[in-house]
């Protein structure tokens, strides 16, 4: 299977492991990742207000590239996924799309207006809905037996649920099912879908610290050995604010179980 792959700014810089293991595992699973030459940063945040046009353009370009290549669009970073998925939903509104396409028409390669046609997958959704967790289980060579893993969803993968359609936003199971497929034991803890403090960390570290500590304390109190995340900013905030547990990207865990990491 061929997909258009959107790494995003942070996977090229501070979160190279998230990207590298995503690529290596995809190869192992028979998924061909085609990275457009000209992708641009998604901007990190979806601006919900309906008069914000320019801030949507980079996402629309990525979505349009996937549509023109006749493939789904694959994201890994939670923030990219949130921005691109919500932009795609916004583009399904005819009036809004007409305004955006007026801007897009100035792009050299613009041919057909974009109206939200692309299917957007987060890597975890691709594993669940296309590859299948059963298939993953069959391909595991190093089962992570006995490891107690706390899935940290945070906000961006789940909310707003109406647009993200990732899983039940209040009682998600996708990451726990993923952890089970790798042979490990998922730990359910109350703060798994609460916010780490996000971008507020840039100007108010103390505020982010309070939120991050609630998350890591909750995981520790429920007996976890480690925390997995899909988000570079969640990982930064949890580690920066003294997580007693290792915080790793879900792609690294997958690479370990598939035997891709040791083969390096």
């Amino acid at each position, binding site marked *: 299977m061929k997909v258009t792959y959107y790494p995003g700014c942070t996977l090229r810089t*501070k979160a190279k492991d998230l990207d590298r293991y995503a690529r290596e595992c995809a190869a192992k699973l028979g998924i061909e990742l085609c990275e457009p030459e000209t992708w641009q940063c998604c901007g*990190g945040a979806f601006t919900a207000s*309906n008069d914000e046009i320019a801030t949507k353009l980079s996402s629309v370009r990525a979505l349009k590239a996937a549509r023109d290549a006749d493939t789904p669009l694959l994201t890994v970073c939670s923030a990219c996924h949130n921005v691109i998925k919500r932009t795609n939903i916004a583009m399904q509104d005819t009036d809004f799309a007409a305004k955006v396409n007026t801007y897009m028409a100035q792009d050299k390669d613009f041919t057909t207006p974009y109206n939200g046609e692309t299917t957007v997958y987060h890597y975890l959704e691709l594993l669940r809905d296309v590859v299948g967790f059963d298939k993953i289980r069959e391909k595991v060579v190093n089962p992570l037996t006995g490891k107690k893993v706390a899935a940290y969803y945070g*906000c961006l993968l789940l*909310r707003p649920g109406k647009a993200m359609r990732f899983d039940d936003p209040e009682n998600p199971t996708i990451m726990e099912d993923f952890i089970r497929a790798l042979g490990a034991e998922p730990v359910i803890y109350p703060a798994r879908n609460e916010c780490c403090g*996000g*971008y507020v960390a840039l100007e108010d570290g103390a505020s982010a610290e309070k939120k991050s500590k609630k998350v890591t304390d909750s995981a520790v109190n429920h007996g976890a050995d480690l925390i997995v995340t899909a988000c570079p900013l969640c990982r930064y905030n949890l580690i920066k604010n003294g997580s007693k547990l290792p915080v790793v990207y879900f792609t690294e865990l997958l690479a370990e179980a598939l035997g891709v990491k040791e083969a390096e």
Partner: protein
Amino acid sequence: MADMERKREQILRISGVNPRKCMRCGKCTATCPSYDEMEYHPHEFVYMVETGEIEPLLKSESLYKCLSCMACVERCPRGVEPGKLVEAIRLVAVREKGGDRITANDIPALLDDEMPQQAIVTAFRKYQK
């Protein structure tokens, strides 16, 4: 006064929020991870937009305590979506001349070696026009 009424209408229009749907249960504030750092809480944003008290909201630090985590949006039993209202008010504030919360010159002092680019670009989207 006319200016504030114009801004109120702009906030309602760009957010798509109807504050009159609110039944004052307070769940948005109860679930907000930043509630104890806010001068005005999510339910107050909704109420004050309804009653037209826009100016104090535009000047409030509370605009920059919101994490855009969308917990209030997800958990509101009436679908009021307070987080979208906060975002629209913040936009109206930063779109004013001189309204930028941060500028590029402020960034180097705020960085450490591990901070992901994602944090910087997101804060820029939220705090600057």
